[in-house]
């Protein structure tokens, strides 16, 4: 399995570098925010965009690009089943998405004072607790599933960003309807995101299982 993880990592190095560059931009934004108090809250607002970037850069091309380049014919005719191949590829991508979320979370907590104080304000709520991690995994698997089903990055990339953005706005609207304490809401939302991510993973697997 370790060899297969190397294969997955070799295929995703460029995506990891792009997300790392984005994290540097977040670091720069946080630094600017500290120097310019007028810009308070800027980085928290931008933090919501990370999920979109993960599905755009990392999730959507993951399988769609294999179809476009024809390399799925190489990957899927070795001695490894498509299921195991998908597990390795998703494991590396998920590790990257979670690591990126952790880095951003560290930037927000260490460099910036809590914005506003109200824990239910979306800027704060969406950047704390387990929700941002679950959202990153959901965004990733949404991109992967759309890429596997449509087989085209030019369709999967814009569509997945659109859906991730819509989903985030829908979550904000739903949260206001339920008057629940911070942690109850956090865990409920996390569980829903992770369940959906599992469904999307199953869809991606079904989409590649019998296709050439």
């Amino acid at each position, binding site marked *: 399995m370790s060899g297969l993880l190397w294969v997955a990592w070799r295929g995703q190095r460029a995506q990891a570098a792009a997300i790392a560059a984005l994290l540097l931009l977040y670091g720069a934004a946080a630094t600017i925010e500290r120097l310019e108090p007028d810009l308070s809250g800027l980085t928290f607002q931008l933090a919501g965009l990370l999920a979109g970037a993960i599905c755009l850069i990392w999730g959507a091309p993951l399988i769609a690009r294999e179809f476009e380049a024809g390399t799925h014919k190489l990957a899927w005719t*070795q001695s490894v089943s498509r299921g195991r191949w998908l597990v390795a590829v998703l494991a590396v991508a998920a590790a990257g998405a979670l690591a990126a979320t952790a880095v951003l979370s560290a930037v927000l907590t260490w460099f910036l004072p809590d914005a506003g104080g109200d824990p239910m304000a979306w800027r704060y709520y969406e950047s704390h607790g387990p929700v941002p991690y679950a959202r990153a995994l959901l965004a990733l698997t949404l991109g992967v599933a759309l890429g596997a089903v449509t087989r085209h990055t030019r369709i999967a990339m814009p569509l997945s960003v659109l859906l991730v953005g819509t989903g985030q706005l829908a979550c904000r609207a739903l949260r206001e309807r339920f008057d629940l304490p911070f942690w109850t809401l956090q865990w409920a939302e996390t569980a829903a995101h992770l369940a959906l991510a599992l469904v999307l993973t199953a869809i991606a697997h079904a989409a590649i299982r019998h296709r050439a």
Partner: protein
Amino acid sequence: MNALETHELGKRYRRRWALREATITVPSGARVALVGPNGAGKSTLLNLVSGLLVPTMGRVEIFGRPMETAAVAFVAQEKPLYRRWSVADLLRFGAATNPRWDRAAARSLLSGHDIDPRERVDRLSGGQRTLVALALAVGKRADLVVLDEPLAELDPLARLQVMSVVRELEATVLLSSHILADLAGVCDHLILLGAGRVRLCGGFAGLLSSHPATDLEELVLHYLRNPEAAR
């Protein structure tokens, strides 16, 4: 034992059958030329035999066992490779995804053709890329090697190099081409497809002795012009 058997194999894309009722037998050690006009179902048959496609009906057996991708080394028509990887990366990919990986065999094929493992795949010529794809197939050490149009779009020198590699493969080989002349010197068996059906299947000698044709070319042309003759 037969290296490959298919029984009533069929593949349908929506409403069109790309291949139907294909029953073929390939004895162990044979070098089979799969020929037929474009659209006859050659790629579909090879994709079914390599496990890339799942048949709509029928089944594939490799050395008496149900098809599994570990048993077949397959080079697809476009010779797909990760173009931004180095050749050495691809060899590592082969080692990571194949338990019987033969590093020495793959390396010696490359060094025999002066291909530097440090080179990036997208900087190689078409002939070199085909040889890298063949090195991956050789390293897998499968007992059945399946090559889809390995000579298409290659210059004459690269064709010779590829054919000499194919000739030296220590496996049963099934390769397709729409130019019979390319294969006559290497192969000893023939499968002829026309319009999604098997028209001929057998050893060169046996086919020629049982049909009124003086050479393979004539035999193939006869069957392509008279599709009904096969039944």
